[in-house]
């Protein structure tokens, strides 16, 4: 069993702010079975909707991960996200992932992303490279394909998000300083804001 308690300056989920660009508090608990099965729960304070309301987001997830003798890891899992206030934003997701060395890639599919009743696929690649003891460079790129429509009732097509940053990792603490970018702020959930699509995020995590 492992977990983390985090404070983030802006809760950016796939680039979209779910905290109205305000700080958020988060907690995660994960159980790992020796055979590779895992399950966990995540909770975060959020500010979403119109007008913005203070709520909690909960994510439960479970899956199976295995490392091959060549050092590659693959995984399959299921994720369910819900909100205490805006319950219509709840959605399930399936994920497939692979990791080799310092790079991981995941594919997420949801038939009802943020309750829009539309199909969506989110692809992401994450990489980490250790620069010095206790310092890693981290990067993330993601792309969301969805047949939902944005707040202007236009087709969304593809939305990209990215992140580059530094992760300072210690025995029990992580500090991450990163820059997050988003190609389109009109997705309709979250309140990233056109003028604050791109910006810094600082997070502090206590690992247990």
């Amino acid at each position, binding site marked *: *069993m*492992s977990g*983390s308690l*985090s*404070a*983030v*300056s802006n809760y*950016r*989920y796939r680039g979209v702010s779910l905290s109205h660009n*305000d*700080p958020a508090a*988060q907690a*995660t608990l*994960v159980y*790992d079975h*020796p055979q*590779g099965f*895992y399950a*966990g729960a*995540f909770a975060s304070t959020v500010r979403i909707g119109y007008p913005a309301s203070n709520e909690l987001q909960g*994510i439960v997830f479970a*899956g199976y*991960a*295995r*490392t091959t*003798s*060549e*050092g590659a*890891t693959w*995984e399959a*899992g299921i*994720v369910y996200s819900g909100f205490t206030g805006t319950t219509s934003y709840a959605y399930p997701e399936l*994920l497939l*992932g692979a*990791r080799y*060395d310092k790079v*991981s890639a*995941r594919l997420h599919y949801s038939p009802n992303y943020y309750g829009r009743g539309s199909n969506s696929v989110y692809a992401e690649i*994450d990489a*980490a490279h250790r620069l010095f003891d206790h310092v*890693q460079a*981290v990067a*993330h790129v993601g792309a969301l394909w969805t047949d939902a429509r944005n707040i202007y009732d236009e087709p969304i097509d593809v939305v990209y998000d990215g*992140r580059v940053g530094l*992760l300072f*990792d*210690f*025995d*029990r*603490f*992580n*500090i*991450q300083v990163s820059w997050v970018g988003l190609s389109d702020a009109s997705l309709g959930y979250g309140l990233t804001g056109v003028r604050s699509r791109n910006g810094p995020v*600082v*997070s*502090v*995590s*206590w*690992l*247990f």
Partner: protein
Amino acid sequence: MRATLLLVLCLAFGACMASERRPDGSVAGETFDRQVLVMLRAAPPHFRPDAYAGAYDAAAGRAAQRRIAEKLASQYELTIVNGWPMPALGVDCFVMQTRGSASLEQLVARLAADPSVESAQSMNEFHVLGHNDPLYPLQPSAKLWRLDDVHKLATGNRVRVAIVDTGVETDHPDLIGRVSVTRNFVDGRASVGEAHGTAVAGIIGARADDGAGIAGVAPGASLLALRACWPLEGRAAGAVCSTFTLAKALQFALDERVEIINLSVGGPRDRLLERLLDVALSRGVIVVAAVEWSAGQVSFPASHRGTLAVAEVEGQDASAAVLFAPGRDIPTPLPGRQWGFVSGSSYAAAHVSGLVALLRELAPNVQTQQVREALAPRAAASVAGGGRPMVDACAAIAALGGACACSCAVASDTGSRVPP
């Protein structure tokens, strides 16, 4: 809210900085005859929603392993000295010092039987395999392996060679620009130049055609200087290493995707190191290890199946599994911007590591077994003459590289020979 967050950040950062000032638990210079290695299963990295915050993948579960290690330490009267992730084996490795007087063997057996422990073993000591003898000013490989001719075909260009040894003097005139990565797995010092590691690095990849010193066997190879051994005053062996420091260096070499690992060290058979070597071999890494003869037996890691075991030519019995290469009175760089002569199996192994780098440049996909067959003396050579057949660089390059590096007469000849 922002002020609160800032306060949390400051407090956390302050706490982290404070933890950095604590001793790092290095094993350098400590006795480790009462230390055990405890391996705990590490969960494979997988999806976590908090990865976007700070708990990045596999690191997130490490605190849990630490908690288990602390519980075990308390239960078995141990003190945690150090810990290191070994993702190549899917474990986190913890070094623990015994506090009680219980038998080490019994303690290891009890730990190994604990369901929360993946495996456990005692910490072993290894030592480097060099010794100093009267010298004469020759570089044997230049003549025996015809390096001038061989370097016209290959210099080991961009082949990554990990030197797991003592520290390397990277600013030595014969090594400037030759070491691409330096890591110290013994203590916190940034750069350490020591005799054995510097000598081995020089033989493998010293600068060529620079008007100074020697020419390395593979002057184009990319060298990784991984310090896992350290000199010990008053010890005949000169320098020692531990299971833990060697394992950390091997894990790093795997992370760096090196193509060749040079291990000029010897010691007892070691389960953790065997497992890491198996991973390296399964990934196509060629492992070259120096041979120390002990009652007619080859020392570990040279004895490990799949490694290329190399001994110096003189004074040893020929063995089908052991390759022989120049290892006596070898001129090479030494710390203090000097050069000197060294002898020992360590340096024979370094010669073969350099030669394998040349072969890897010419045939990038060549595997250990093919290299072994190309380097092994031919049967006819072993019978005729009565001498101990040496690795023949020209013949090996002709066999694997498909090129006639020297004269074709040499390439088709039997191996080079030295008097018995």
